[in-house]
């Protein structure tokens, strides 16, 4: 083991792998002192706020989906919600249910992708899922089964996994037939054993021991674990309405990032599965609470690596809630799925919990229904500052423990990865 006092440390991870988008980690330690410790975002901006300008509000969900290849269902639904709030549209109940079911499929797909394809290689000491295909085929098999279900659920409920087409302002373009919903329910039930196996695998992995007191921001559920719309809450005791999102995010520019950063009560805050879990624990499905208790994950957790565990708990939540919702939907009248409305001038905000955290879209429209101003605040954009500050605590701690450069680099990358960043999204 090399002591930090003997050898300087110079880490430069260019374009960190197994995350979406382009970000760099730079760490320097000389004479036992941190000379550099930076989470740098170098993604090229697409200027979505400008792309929206001048388009009809009906185009918003379609274009918003393109912000992100992974969470495009969330983006389409957030844009639809912002438009519907601007135009005072009451979305029919069937459409609301299908939207939430599609969102659950996306959450499952995204969390399983992250846990098995992006995170698991770190714990098995390999570079990717590719060697795992031959070394631990059963692990890949579990992920394949669960994602296979989630992908087919998205295909049926949203049109496809990435860039869905059925979500339109006012509701949906169509609803699946009852027979298709029954088949989906059967398939979901067949996949529950794989969910249990997934839990067994992650129960056996111990997350790095690290804590930093953090403010967590998410939606606040009323009577169910929140995903679409509602009040905004912070674990430091702040509560606001959906329309006040700007006061909840306080975006600002920094030189080391093409994504904006955010803050609230402290220098930074965190969003995502752990924030939702910490702020809405009591509203989780009983099966999800059971798992949380089993793996020792408690609300009020401040270890960022527990984002991974909170995602696992949410996988259980969305699978069991989907089962209940599908059963209910099969027995209900699904004929009304689109509200009629008239376009007028207005302004609306939509807030929604995307897989990586709370997401906001905001549109101002003129009396012809053209978008005159758009704003998007992305979950990973809200996490960047927190990742940066976490690194500032993690790296000196590891150095003080006498960890070698390679281990510090690996742990720093694992920290970034725990947030499941979606960097292109954050820059948009």
């Amino acid at each position, binding site marked *: 083991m090399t002591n930090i006092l003997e050898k300087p440390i110079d880490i430069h991870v260019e374009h960190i792998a197994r995350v979406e988008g382009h970000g760099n980690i730079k760490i320097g330690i000389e004479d036992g002192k941190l000379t550099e410790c930076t989470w740098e975002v170098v993604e090229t901006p*697409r*200027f979505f706020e400008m792309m929206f300008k*001048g*388009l009809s509000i009906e185009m918003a969900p379609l274009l918003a989906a393109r912000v992100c290849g*992974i969470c495009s269902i969330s983006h389409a639904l957030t844009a639809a919600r912002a438009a519907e709030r601007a135009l005072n549209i009451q979305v029919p109940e069937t459409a609301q249910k299908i939207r939430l079911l599609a969102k659950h499929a996306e959450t499952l797909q995204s969390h399983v992708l992250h846990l098995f394809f992006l995170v698991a290689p770190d714990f098995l000491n390999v570079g*990717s899922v590719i060697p795992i295909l031959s070394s631990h085929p059963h692990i890949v098999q579990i992920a*394949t089964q669960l994602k296979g279900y989630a992908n087919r659920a998205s295909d049926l409920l949203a049109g496809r996994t*990435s860039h869905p*087409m059925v979500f339109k302002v006012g509701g949906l373009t169509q609803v699946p037939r009852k027979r298709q919903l029954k088949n989906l329910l059967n398939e979901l039930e067949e996949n529950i054993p794989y969910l249990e196996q997934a839990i067994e695998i992650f129960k056996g992995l111990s997350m790095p021991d690290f804590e930093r007191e953090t403010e967590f921001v998410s939606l606040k559920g009323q009577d169910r674990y929140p995903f679409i719309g509602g009040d905004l809450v912070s674990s430091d005791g702040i509560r606001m309405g959906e329309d006040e999102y700007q006061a909840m995010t306080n975006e600002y520019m920094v030189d080391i990032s093409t994504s904006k950063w955010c803050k609230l009560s402290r220098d930074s805050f965190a969003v995502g599965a752990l924030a939702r879990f910490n702020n809405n624990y009591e509203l989780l499905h009983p099966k999800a609470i059971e798992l949380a208790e089993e793996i020792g994950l408690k609300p009020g957790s401040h270890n960022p690596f527990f984002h991974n565990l909170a995602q696992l708990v949410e996988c259980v939540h969305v699978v069991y809630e989907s089962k209940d919702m599908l059963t209910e939907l099969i027995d209900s009248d699904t004929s009304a799925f689109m509200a009629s409305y008239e376009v007028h001038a207005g302004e609306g905000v939509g807030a929604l919990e995307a897989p990586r955290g709370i997401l906001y879209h905001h549109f101002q429209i003129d009396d012809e229904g053209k978008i005159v101003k758009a704003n998007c605040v992305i979950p990973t954009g809200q996490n960047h500052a927190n990742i940066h500050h976490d690194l500032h605590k993690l790296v000196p701690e590891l150095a003080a423990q006498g960890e070698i450069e390679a281990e510090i680099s690996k742990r720093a990358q694992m920290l970034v990865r725990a947030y499941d960043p979606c960097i292109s999204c954050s820059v948009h």
Partner: protein
Amino acid sequence: MKYLGIPLEKPKVAFFGFTGCEGCQLQIANKEETLADLLGAVEVMSFRLISSDKDDGYDIAFVEGSITTEGEVERLKKIRAQAKILVAIGACACLGGVNNLRSRFPLDETIQEVYGNHVIESGPVRKLSEVVTVDYELPGCPISKAEFEWLVRHVIVGVIPQLPQYPVCVECKQRIKTCVFDMGIMCMGPVTRAGCNAICPSNHMGCWGCRGAVDEANFESFIEILRERGFAEREIAERANFFNAFSGVDVIPQLEG
């Protein structure tokens, strides 16, 4: 892999992302059912989205996204210099895609709108073929995994992948779908290259042209029919310009800022 007792070398492939959403690379990683098959046929040298292992000794490069900065131009040129075959994947790489919607506005106004006076490097939106020679284009927003696998099979055995030369309507009729025009929905299907299995019209959305123009499309008659059917100029402009698929077709109304 052996053929007639001769060991065959697997083609060495790499995946790269530029200005885009990485949704096309995700399609390749996402349908795990056939991932093992794909990895049996090619050797993945570099795929940052899912792998920390990196090796620049690739022969085939799959490139997603548009080019918007000088840094990206340099990176793409390096990839081109290394790759024997360069494949553009997705609407952003093949057409400019939705990125082009911001080209309606001057660049300084665009930066100002999003970043205020903060300094940010950006430039015009370019498809890959405006910067380097592209060997094959795999269109779509996003690409389809099945079509990607089809293209890989062709490239491996050295056969030129020929995209369908008929419009989306053909596939829509093969699926016995009701024409969305009869539901009052506009559709670019008659002038757009097939290969998507008419996925958007099938979901009652109508086509937006993400796969680019079909050969020998009759735009004049098509636009005339849209007008006859009562679609407003703005609606036509929004749909036809959404993916920048028909740029240069002068009968298509321009999308205003």
